[in-house]
């Protein structure tokens, strides 16, 4: 309902973030920007992202966006991280525009993750 500041998906991801937590092994990025703190951890396997986990400190949209990202990119090709777009989150989760900056922080984290995990698997 339009009177709710949070879409149903945001509420759902926020309440049950299946990918919250850590991974043993793999790589991780930490980012602390715009009052948002995120850690994304990934385990790659033969060009694909095998597992994703996150930790986050921020508003409900940030937490939900992290979960959304993890749920969507587990199993995806590692290269797809390079073309990940914050605008997908904005649209799919109906994030209000004034929060664009925060969602871009997640985009930054994802891109860094892509570089690390790509570099890691090449090594």
């Amino acid at each position, binding site marked *: 309902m339009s009177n709710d500041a949070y879409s149903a998906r945001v509420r759902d991801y926020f309440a049950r973030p299946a990918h919250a937590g850590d991974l043993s092994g793999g790589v991780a990025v*930490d980012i602390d920007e715009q009052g948002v703190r995120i*850690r994304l951890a990934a385990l790659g396997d033969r060009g694909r992202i095998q597992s994703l986990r996150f*930790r986050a400190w921020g*508003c*409900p949209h940030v937490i939900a966006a992290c979960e959304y990202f993890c749920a969507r990119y587990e199993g995806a090709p590692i290269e797809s991280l390079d073309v990940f777009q914050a605008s997908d989150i904005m649209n799919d989760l109906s994030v209000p525009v004034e929060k664009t900056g925060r969602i871009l922080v997640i985009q930054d984290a994802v891109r860094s993750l892509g570089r690390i995990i790509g570099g890691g698997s090449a090594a």
Partner: protein
Amino acid sequence: MVDDFIYLDYAASTPLDPLVAERLHDCRESVFANPSSNHAAGRISRAMIEGGAQQLAALLNVDPGTLIWTSGATESDNLGVAGAARFRSHRGKHLVTLLTEHKAVTDVFQMLEKEGFEVTWLKPDAGGCLDPAAFASVLREDTQLASIMYVNNETGVMQDIEAIGSICRERDVLLHVDAAQAVGKIPIDLQALPVDLLSLTAHKFYGPKGIGALYIANRPGCRVDPILFGGGQQRRIRPGTLPADLIAGLGLAAEIAQSRIETDLEHLGKLRRALWAAIRDVEGVLVNGDIESGFPGILNVSVSGIEGESLLLELEPICVATGSACNSKSQEPSYVLRALGRSDRLAQSAVRFSMGRPTTEADVEFAGRRYRQAVARLRDLAPEAAA
């Protein structure tokens, strides 16, 4: 009460007292004429308004003729502050207020600054209190008006209106008091209290929304310029057709409040103690304001390491506020809590629990439990938890 949520936001607004709801409903058939109309139907409306004025006047211990009806405390604050400042502007243009006033006061002072008035903005101490001596020290020869709220809407902190008012009387400064959070909740005797202008709104004490009042003391030099213009209603101070039904509702709400103010205060005190007991050992929790003094209907707490918006969502189905309702939509940390010296982060994590007549001990215990769980889960989600 709808039972899929627990309402702990009585400082934002209260439900109608059931008797007030009945009174409003009863008005619908016979009390509808324009009270300015000089005929039998108009007289019925006028009688309702006079009855309401008498009930409110009794609560405040004033003459009914000193009350001007408005649409709420926002309008009362605008009329009281801007109206009195302009009325006395030929005598001087210095005004005094507090940084922690409600927006309906601070925004008016900012507007008056643009109009050429000079405003001294006082900062309260870390507990939210204004020291009367500090207040006295900023008064000048040309000071005409001060506006100091009674009960702070975010923290429940109460100012020493008696001391501040006495200083004002000595120095011939008018005192406006925003009592939106005080009327019907704490005893106010305006025969004893040296207050010149006082704003209130019915929906904060179980009366209807859309109706409020401004008390204007019957003293020389205490007058306001109107801010709305139109028909000759209310001695030309405030035009517009008066909503006789809402005024009757406000009056009854005032009468009910008067009869149970002590019981209510005791009830709220118990609830606040129970709530605080339930959350006080959460790590990093801090009271904004003062748990000992202050209005017992409000408990405002901050907690370290927690993002406020997520905390609020996690607290659902408990309806609470961050800062005041008017600012709930904005992401900015409360200016009131910043003025008390809280960091942005701590201010942003603030939760205002406000209790009311229908609140039960079970409600606050549930709220306390939920608060602990929420803080724990959000901390667990944060990157620090990994370390």
